[in-house]
């Protein structure tokens, strides 16, 4: 749709829904995305031709819809997804960013990658096998990442004779463990990704199902913004100091550039600069398009401050209400993504916002048992694809929020020293203490 038409006709901004597929290997995730693109007429002629060409070689004449997202040679050879593929499409009602993630347990790290930016996850289950450990693992990860909406797609209904009883049985398997995961909005849809039943068009085989098709649901589900507008946070990415500016007014320009990770900031507002803990005032909110009076999460801005304070990359500028926590002792839920296990005593780099610090693991509190979705206390280690709660000690204090309050200031990754591998995704538990003023400043 041309932007000109949009701008004049509708003042309401376009809505983007980001969603991902998950579920066990071969449950039909890539086929579903292919079907969704195909039936919603989102494919171009050359893409359809390419599909048909590859069908002649490998598919015995049948086109393979999964080939649309399984873009790597190794994926097409093995018929599995190895890494996330991103696809973009739009209907007149919404724009969509799709992440098709792999189901194979070996590539769980890539599933976490695709799911971490989603507003909605589609969990596929093969109607013949029902819920298995990998279905529970992916559901648990979606819950841990706090993805607000889930769709459980009970797929391959064509292979179970479109049985409503089977649909209800699998739905009951989910409903048995969902309460343990704190997931609120779940929709169950019976479908056949292969044949297109209930994907874009309603199926004639499921008269007993009265709900929406998948696309109908994706177009209408209400998505609230991910962004937290309470509690101003600006992690400083880069200090903006022009070298030899020709413009004399820029001689003493010193700005702090970053993306607002929470709340709203206004000129004249008081803020605290951490780690110095000193209170100052916002003199100007500089942007390329001119100074603004007010800016909000997730805009990228450059702040000019009243006082000269030691602020550099990794510093955090914070508003005076809704104060964050600060500590060197941290507790977090982690999803472990590396073959070398996490063990107490090991050291890693932790990247939180724009700040990288050394940490050591002081304790593994528990590990999620994927058979029962209960926590087993005090395991010796967390192995690859395990989920658990850990305690860390950081070399320098972190200024943070709980992940449930703010995704951007409550998340971190762990990096292995030496190999630089990204080994864990972490979600911080709420801080035990909030920063407090001492003689006007907030010393941490």
């Amino acid at each position, binding site marked *: 749709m041309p932007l000109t038409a949009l701008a004049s006709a509708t003042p309401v901004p376009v809505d983007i829904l980001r969603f991902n597929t998950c579920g066990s290997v071969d449950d039909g995730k890539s086929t579903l995305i292919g079907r969704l693109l195909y039936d919603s007429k989102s494919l171009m002629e050359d893409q359809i031709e390419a599909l048909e060409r590859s069908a002649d070689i490998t598919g015995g004449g049948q086109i393979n819809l999964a080939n649309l*997202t399984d*873009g*790597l040679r190794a994926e097409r050879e093995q018929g599995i997804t190895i890494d996330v593929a991103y696809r*973009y499409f739009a209907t007149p009602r919404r724009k969509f960013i799709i992440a098709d993630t792999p189901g194979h347990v070996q590539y769980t790290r890539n599933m976490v990658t695709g799911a971490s930016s989603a507003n909605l996850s589609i969990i596929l289950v093969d109607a013949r096998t029902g819920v298995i450990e990998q279905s529970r693992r992916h559901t648990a990860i979606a819950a841990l990442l706090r993805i607000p909406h889930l769709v459980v797609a009970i797929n391959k209904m064509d292979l179970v004779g479109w049985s409503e009883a089977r649909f209800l049985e699998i739905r009951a398997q989910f409903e048995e463990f969902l309460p343990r995961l704190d997931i609120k909005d779940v929709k169950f849809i019976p479908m056949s990704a292969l044949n297109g039943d209930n994907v874009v068009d309603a199926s004639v085989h499921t008269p007993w199902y009265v709900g929406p098709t998948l696309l109908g649901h994706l177009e209408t589900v209400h998505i609230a913004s991910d962004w937290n507008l309470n509690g101003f946070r600006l992690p400083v*990415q880069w200090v903006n100091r022009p070298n030899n500016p020709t413009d004399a007014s820029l001689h003493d320009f010193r700005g702090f*550039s970053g993306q607002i990770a929470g709340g709203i900031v206004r000129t004249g507002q008081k803020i605290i600069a951490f780690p110095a803990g000193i209170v100052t005032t916002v003199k100007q909110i500089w942007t390329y398009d001119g100074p603004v009076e007010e800016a909000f999460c997730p805009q*990228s801005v450059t702040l000019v401050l009243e006082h000269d304070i030691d602020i550099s990359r990794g510093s955090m500028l914070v508003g005076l209400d809704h104060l964050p926590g600060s500590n060197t002792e941290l507790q977090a839920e982690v999803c472990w993504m590396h073959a070398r296990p996490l063990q107490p005593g090991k050291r890693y780099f932790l990247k939180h916002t724009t700040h990288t610090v050394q940490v050591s693991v002081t304790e593994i509190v528990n590990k999620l048992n994927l058979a029962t979705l209960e926590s087993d206390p005090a395991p010796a280690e967390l192995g690859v694809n395990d989920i658990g709660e850990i305690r860390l000690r950081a070399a320098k204090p972190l200024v943070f929020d709980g992940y449930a309050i703010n995704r951007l200031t409550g998340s971190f*990754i762990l990096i292995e020293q030496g190999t630089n591998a990204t080994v864990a995704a972490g979600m911080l538990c709420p801080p035990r203490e909030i920063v407090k003023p001492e003689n006007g400043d907030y010393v941490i």
Partner: protein
Amino acid sequence: MSSYHLDHLQHLETEAIHIMREVAGEFERPALLFSGGKDSICLLRLAEKAFRPSDLPMPLLNVDTGHHFPELNEFRDRRAQQLGGKLIVRTVEDAIAKGIAQPAPGEISRNRLQIPTLLAAIEEFRFDCCIGGARRDEEKARAKERFFSFRDSFGQWDPKNQRPEIWNLYNGRLNPGENMRVFPISNWTEMDVWEYIQRENLEVPSIYFSHKRPCVRRGGQWLPVNALVPPKAHEEVRELVVRVRTIGDIISTGCVESPATTTGDIIAEIAAARVTERGSRADDKSSEAAMEDRKKAGYF
């Protein structure tokens, strides 16, 4: 609350600016790959938004295949100068002369040869990061790539072993000799790029707009007639009103018949298009995995 709402282009913009600044914060010697094409034109505006009022904290780098459209190079040089940016150009010609790149017998395309040329430039200037304008919607191997795409000390991409990339926390840590390619507009579509060009009122090379040009019918597309693409006796040549939708080398870029003379016309044309932008590039059609293979070898 509606005043605290970003539209989809503003979302894409703030995501890209954040990535640009992460590059400036995490790397010692970054470069920005600037070809003069529409995607890298957007990159340059995003860099201005990320770093002004300072100078851009990285030079611009272009690998000149020697088969560029002249309009493209003219635009590239002029735009770099307007910005006050430092532009480094390394040519395939030169790389061949120095023995860095070795054409196969009869190899006319510079597609493969730009890879060693780029890798040599990275080594020469010890760049630890190159920002590029690739988008995931262009091609299915691109659709698999991270924002921060790790390359080993041979410049190779290992698609089976990419670093997890979670939330907006990018791991830019490298060991000596390793390299990062960073793609801030990964999530942009062709439509987003043109809408952004329109919103920001950005100049683009003239060949994106409709013009008269003699074209020769070859391999199902209209190639521009020029010294490198002389028509053969049996081939059909016509003077057409065309534009290019994506700019590759002058020997492989198909022209599309189009009356589009403004950015608005182009946006309307793309909205109605039935083929993808890469549908007009011969270099990606050669095999199902052409792009994947080039990226594994060190292509952007």
